[in-house]
């Protein structure tokens, strides 16, 4: 889509949290890159490490987290930066929209104040200018009567408006990368669509890259250029949206698709993947998905699958890519096994 250089390049990122019970390996060797106006989707079940990845990029992980690998913003390495140095990127170069707009805004300050604060964090503006900019931002994200709404408190906003305000805050400094971590999960379906549409429009407006994190494939369908499927801290399949949707080569991706209403077909029941993700403290030796995988065999249980190139830009971490290639309709994988 664009021939520009990657603006953010994450390579082999790993994050571990030492806890009383042991080391939580939340992210294991994640790599991706985005270019301006790219939309990268990161999908996966709850707990697979999506947010930790995003927080690592923002440098917002707790002090206890051990981050290895590389995060490059243009030419700058972000891993290992001091909190103070990191501040220059946050909000300014890389901004983030959080999952729950109900709690992500400080309840005691007016929305406008919080916006102005974001603006003034990186730009030397007077209060007045910052306020004008806040109103403008609220306009941009489609909040009616922004002039008066700027003086409202978050609790006076609906959920959708709050998320718009959050997005306004995130774009306040024209960031180059906008990470949206499940930005619509807490909202109802119609609002979800509006918000997503707005995000995509903003991308072009700002010339920014968007990383859209979700556990719901439906949300990213049709929006993203590229997608990464994560499982137990690892990227298990990467490809274009079409790759993942129409020729998934990882049983986990297939499972996720199976739980999509549109995909499963109207007459068929939804087939969620049975079982739960493994504990990130004591990961099994083989493929972490093997306990839940219909194709699992001895190799899966003992050897972690390597990244196998399926086609150009489509990579899957599965021992059974060949088998899936051979299958007439891999999407029926779970049903077949079930019967």
């Amino acid at each position, binding site marked *: 889509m664009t021939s520009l250089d990657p603006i953010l390049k994450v390579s082999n990122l790993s994050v571990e949290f030492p806890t009383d019970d042991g080391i939580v390996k939340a992210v294991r060797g994640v790599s991706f890159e985005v270019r301006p106006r790219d939309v990268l989707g990161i999908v996966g079940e709850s707990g697979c490490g999506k947010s930790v990845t995003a927080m690592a990029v923002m440098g917002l992980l707790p002090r206890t987290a051990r981050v290895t690998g590389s995060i490059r913003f243009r030419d700058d390495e972000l891993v290992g930066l001091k909190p103070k140095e990191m501040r220059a990127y946050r909000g300014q170069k890389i901004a983030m929209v959080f999952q729950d707009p109900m709690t992500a805004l400080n309840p005691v300050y007016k929305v406008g104040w919080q916006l102005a604060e974001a603006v003034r964090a*990186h730009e030397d503006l007077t209060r007045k200018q910052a306020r004008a900019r806040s109103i403008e931002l609220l306009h941009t994200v489609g909040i009616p009567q922004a002039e008066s709404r700027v003086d409202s*408190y978050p609790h006076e906003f609906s959920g959708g408006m709050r998320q718009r305000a959050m997005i306004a805050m995130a774009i306040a400094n024209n960031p180059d990368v906008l990470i949206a971590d499940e930005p619509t999960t807490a909202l109802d379906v119609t609002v979800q669509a509006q918000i997503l549409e707005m995000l995509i429009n903003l991308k072009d407006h700002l010339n920014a890259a968007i990383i859209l994190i979700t556990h719901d494939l439906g949300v990213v369908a049709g929006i993203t250029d590229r997608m990464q499927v994560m499982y137990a801290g690892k990227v298990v399949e990467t490809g274009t949206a079409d790759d993942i949707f129409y020729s998934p080569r990882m049983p986990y991706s297939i499972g996720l698709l199976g739980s999509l209403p549109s995909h499963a077909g109207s007459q068929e029941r939804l087939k969620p993947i049975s079982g739960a993700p493994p504990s990130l403290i004591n990961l099994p030796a083989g493929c972490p998905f093997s306990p839940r995988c219909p194709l699992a065999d001895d190799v899966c249980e003992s050897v972690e699958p390597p990244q196998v190139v399926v086609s150009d830009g489509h990579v899957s971490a599965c021992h059974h890519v060949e088998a899936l290639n051979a299958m007439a309709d891999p999407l029926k994988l779970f049903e077949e096994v079930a019967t």
Partner: protein
Amino acid sequence: MISFIIRRVLVSIPLLFLASIVAFILVVNTGDPIEDLRTKPNVPKATIALREHELGLDKPVVERYVSWLGKAVHGDFGKTIKNQPVWAQVRRSLGVTLRLVLFAEIVSVLIGVMIGVVSAVKQYSWFDYGATTGAFLLYSLPVLAVGSFLKFILAIRLNRWIGRGDDPLIKTIGEGTANFCTASKPYNCGFIPSVTDFLSHAFLPMLTLVLITFAGYARFSRAAMLETLNADYVRTARAKGLSERRVIMKHAFRTALMTVATVISLDFGALIGGAILTETIFEWHGMGRVLVESINKIDPNLLLCWFFVTAVAVIAFNLIADIIYAVLDPRIRLD
């Protein structure tokens, strides 16, 4: 806001009224104020009858309550069993308690909140461990032990050590030296000498109060801060690229302050009843002493007046706590 206050005050009245009935019943059942007189061998029966009459002990409880209430609503709290005006004593004691508690409370809050905030921000650091353990120790130490220890080390020993054994610099009792400012020593009654004397008396009890109360505030504000530090909006604030200082003060602390301020204000209301133990140990004749004395002496009017003032203070500071909360939290509307 005004209508809220009025409404709350109006609601408090029946509450106060009910509470006064309970208090009255408790008080009249604690014992016989003239027990001693009755068991003295040579007190004339007529004198006992006179005292019963004067104290209303010969009247039914309901009648006694009604007559007490009738006067109390007009601000007349009657006389003690020693025939002293009750209100004068309680007002004086209130002053003593306020002098002791106000300053100590302010210092405790400042120190406590500061330590609490720092240990929350630096959770699991050495400072945090030290402060948390220290606060816990102080919090659980008996006041009596703290007071006695301070008296011994900082008064008795220290005074002798600096050669002021006869004319002690640090005092252990009272709010002032008993024979300091008297009719025959008017020169001691000026501002500077008075304040100097006051400080030499106030040092230990205030230190004791600070030591035993700041720990509570430290613990409380640490907990409140930990909660807000983990809040989503603090993460948002960081994501904006704000300085850590601004994140902590403007976002985490500002919201933690809502609960901290509420607790402080409620505490303060309770303190009006007297810092009973500290007052006892250091002989500050404040509200705490009024309570102890009125119970020991079975002095109904005194106890009821104490109760009344304390109840009003508690209710008032509850109201203030609500107002503070409402002022600090825009989500709360007071009408």
